[in-house]
């Protein structure tokens, strides 16, 4: 029983992390129909930022996620301006492959500059702290990340559904030209969306440094899972991505414990295929 509870909590917590990582990707996909293949490398860059800030200036990632968020906002915006905007609409897969090139570039640049070492901040504020719920142990860093994930997802949802800017974003997503005719500067919206997408993954990466090691390859599996989360959730639906992330966290955790640990990612990818074949537009897709 306590096993069950533990596995459940682990699943939810990793689901929340995946939701945080995927939120930005989902937004970009929804508004622009572009998959940012470098998403995982954005995550890595954010982790490096917080790692180095923590390592050199001894600032805890609990604070530096702000810096990572801001830097990644800029990185996202620059990526849009220099790469996405110029490849968009040229060929079906051009933005996807261009960002694939970007991911290779970023990954190996970090490898070249920072060496492939695994880097882990020790002695952070949250490091190793835990608390108990009904016999199950909850790790504080993961818990805090989970809270952030909820906050970010709710904030994004609120931004999109309840604000003027959100309207502009929705309008742009539905019909770019018509939005322009309403006086919405869609270029700016795209820039902003890519920036926000970056910022979300920046926050995620920042918080992850409280308990995960950073290395040039860290983004790989996270980005694959983020792709699956976003597609499973359905075209650009933030609640969809959230639900999908939790589902995937749970599938991973339960398969890992009750079936076999080596099968947990098989189960994650398989659940995507099964769901998507029944609902070709994802859980919440339209």
């Amino acid at each position: 029983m306590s096993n069950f509870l533990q596995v459940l909590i682990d699943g939810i917590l990793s689901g929340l992390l995946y939701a945080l990582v995927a939120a930005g990707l989902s937004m970009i996909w929804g508004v622009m129909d572009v998959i940012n293949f470098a998403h995982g490398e954005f995550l890595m860059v954010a982790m490096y930022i917080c790692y180095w800030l923590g390592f050199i200036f001894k600032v805890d990632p609990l604070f530096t996620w702000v810096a990572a968020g801001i830097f990644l906002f800029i990185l996202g915006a620059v990526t849009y301006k220099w790469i996405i905007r110029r490849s968009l609409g040229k060929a079906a897969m051009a933005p996807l492959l261009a960002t694939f090139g970007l991911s290779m570039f970023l990954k190996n640049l970090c490898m070249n500059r920072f060496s492939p070492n695994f880097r882990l901040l020790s002695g952070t504020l949250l490091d190793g702290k835990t608390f108990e719920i009904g016999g199950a142990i909850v790790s504080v860093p993961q818990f805090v990340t989970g809270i952030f994930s909820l906050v970010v997802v709710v904030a994004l949802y609120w931004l999109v559904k309840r604000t003027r800017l959100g309207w502009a974003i929705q309008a742009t997503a539905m019909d770019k030209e018509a939005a322009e005719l309403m006086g919405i500067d869609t270029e700016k919206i795209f820039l902003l969306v890519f920036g926000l997408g970056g910022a979300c993954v920046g926050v995620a990466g920042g918080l992850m440094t409280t308990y995960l090691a950073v290395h040039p390859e860290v983004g790989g599996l996270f980005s694959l899972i983020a792709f699956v989360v976003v597609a499973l959730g359905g075209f650009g639906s933030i609640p969809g991505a959230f639900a999908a992330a939790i589902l995937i966290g749970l599938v991973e955790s339960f398969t890992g414990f009750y079936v076999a640990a080596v099968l947990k990612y098989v189960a994650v990818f398989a659940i995507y295929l099964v769901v998507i074949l029944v609902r070709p537009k994802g859980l919440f897709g339209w």
Partner: protein
Amino acid sequence: AEEIKVGALFPLTGPAAVSGQNCVNSVLAAADVINTKNPDIKAPLAAGEGLVGGKYVIKIVPADHQGKPDVAKSEAERLYNQEKVFAVIGCYNSSATKPASAVAERAKKIFLCGCSSSAALTERGYKYFFRHAPTDAIESVEFVDYIAYLNKEKNAGIKTLGVIYENTEFGKHAADEARKAAKRADLEIVADVPFNNGATNLNSEVQKLKSANPDAVFGAALGGDYSLWVRTMKQVNWLPKIAINYCTGYQNPAVQKELGSDGNFFMGGMGYSPELAKKFMPEAIKIQDKYYTPRSKQPFDSDSIQEAVMLMVLAQAIEKAGGPDTEKVAKIIQTDEFPSVMSLSGRVKFSSDGQNAEALSVITQLHEQKYQTVFPLKYKDSEPTLPMTPWDKR
């Protein structure tokens, strides 16, 4: 002087790149020892300049296999055919060493292996392949011997065993050998947990261990996974009585530095540690400080140092053969015994399958980032902390 080229084929990029780069640095350090005058170092070939009275110098040609067997294979070919290297040292990952050494064997060229640990490598009947490291089989036997000793002498009461290993060539071999050894020693395996390397979390893996609650755990995880594993155990607040690791993660100083006190009280098999070296391998420390640390910014580790040993062995054999004659050199490596200041046993001697018969590893336990030797008794320098100190008491 004439150059004798030696390829150093390691994973310079990709997931194992940290260790791969250490290995190259280690080989380069050994080459420096050989090529320059080092009267301060008391090792074969250190004092003089080059080989055969200065007639030859060693030139290292580094190459990157990215952790990919197919790349390792074609890079090995390039090194032998294009770069005309006399021998290749590599490849760290057993999975890369296999096809790369197959290239050498087919071409009848020498291939030297420092630390790849898969027992299968020396079960192929190759004539030009030599390996320094103890295999997983040797280490597994040592691990269970140690447990038997603990049970007998310290009343440790260790009856059950869990194995956690990455699902790769390395991890699977290690786990196979662990199972065999455990069977012979009557240890019951209650948890057998393979995991995907590079996983985003190890929650369910550790939870499995925890719920089976074995007395001892054998671990086979590379750097990042190792620290994730340790941290996850801390998170779920669980420890076995004793945890012993095969190579890498545990013995990597960089990883341990990052784990800090969380890394304490884990054990592992190693052939080198600064602490061991102080006692038994003073010359290795000199080489380390003079040629290795300036490159790698850290002390030798038990994996990478073995690559240096293999270059020293090769150099001694060339010296004896009087020049780079593959057949002669291979024959000498096969038959002779070599003194080795960087091996714990102090010498290297290959049995007919190419495995170093003198391969030795000791079991160490980590205390405050120091590797203290706890077994075998001959090398023992301190008493083990048993069982491991629980997380909340640290």
